[in-house]
């Protein structure tokens, strides 16, 4: 059974979203997502300044097995990305909610409020 921290919000495409301050959000992939991917060996990060759309691909996560798109859970502008993942892609498996954060986005608070809460996400993955 995978971890779904109660204080985070979630997308149906298996990203978690943490509010840093209203309007600024940190994004990563869920424990459930990393389990499905298997061992991650490369992450193509979204670029700072890049405009992204909710539910559109903004990067790539490569596991040993397969390449998977990384989706943005919100529309907005990328304001930071976790450059340490370039040398430590395994952090997505080992610590998906902390060291494995992927990018930060400036987005609308109303969109954030529409995301799934932990109970709804847990329900959506059948756990």
């Amino acid at each position, binding site marked *: 059974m995978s971890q779904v921290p109660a204080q985070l919000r979630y997308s149906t495409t298996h990203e978690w979203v943490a509010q840093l301050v209203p309007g600024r959000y940190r994004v990563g992939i869920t424990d459930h997502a990393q389990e499905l991917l298997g061992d991650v060996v490369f992450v193509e990060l979204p670029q700072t300044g890049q405009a992204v759309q909710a539910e559109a691909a903004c990067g790539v996560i490569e*596991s040993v097995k397969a390449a998977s798109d990384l989706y943005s859970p919100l529309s907005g502008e990328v304001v930071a990305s976790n450059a340490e993942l370039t040398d430590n892609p395994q952090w997505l498996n080992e610590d998906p909610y902390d060291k494995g954060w992927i990018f930060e986005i400036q987005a609308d608070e109303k969109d954030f409020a529409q995301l799934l809460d932990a109970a709804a996400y847990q329900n959506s993955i059948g756990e």
Partner: protein
Amino acid sequence: MSEALERTALYSWHQAHGARMSPFAGWEMPLHYGSQLREHEAVRQAAGLFDVSHMRPLDLQGPAARSLLRRALANDIARLDAEPGRALYTCMLQEDGGILDDLIVYFLGGDRYRIVLNAAGARADASYLQDLAEEEGGVEFLRRDDWGILACQGPKAVAWAAEALALPELAALKPFRSVAPRADLFIARTGYTGEDGIEILARHGHLAAIADALLARGVVPSGLAARDSLRLEAGLNLYGQDMTTTDSPDRSHLGWTVDLRDPKRDFIGRSAIESERVQGPAQRLWGLLLPRDAIPRHGYELLSAAGETIGTVTSGSFAPSLGLGIALARLRADVGPDSAVFLQVRQRKVPARIVEPPFWRHGQAVYPAEESLPQ
């Protein structure tokens, strides 16, 4: 596919050991037990255990068994005559030279042979061989559906298995040889990982005890995901991906498995192979090396410097033992190790180095990392 997946005799054993199960060729098989990378590494450094019971043993016996297999298989089992227990890797071809399946055949002595078939084709292959046999008669078939197969692979595999099974004679078993210590146990020094190791055929009821004894010695349970990255590093083809009915052995880096030496042996596909050898194959299977930010995947295209499509990746993966992307790719026959080729990875065209497989052999990288990639 609405058909229910088949389960091996070790299904609950896998669950008890934390396996993530996944459908493969009609079977529900362990994909990994937590980390593909850790299992891959265990096989390269020590030993891993794979349940490969989705592969199906089929025994053939009778006065016409030898002639049937000399006709059905592209490699010549006459090579096994002098040595019961010996094994041979071979393709089974269509008349047009396309590969129906690849398999290992063991000579059990007298007029008895055992073949081990891939999961996907096992049923069709068995009825194909039975149909062929009916034309001549004199062959009995016995499907070993009450047996499973475990592969114990890695530099420590044979020593640990010899202890675990209390069979010290395993240490002296040579590669591609087999031994049957009991009527219900068959062990061959074969595998699919590029490491030393054995494959153990035993009755369903004995498999869990064998697996437990191997784990107690230090063997690590390993899934199909690690098996795939290991076999690809070892340059071993996967049927259905690197070879299909539309590809001949010469197009699949398997020309060495076709035995044309006996001119009187009229095996199925022979004339197609002979004419292909006169003209040369239109395509060949090569290895590719790529940086880790451009991991090749099945179906990716290869382009020439001019942007023309010159081939396709048939199997691709990150190579854990090399830290690089590797692939098998079918390329136009005029393309080879000196050609400039580019892999189309999403929006980028990344230079790839063409090499002869394997990528990993005898416990080390064949192409050292510092000289692996194009400048």
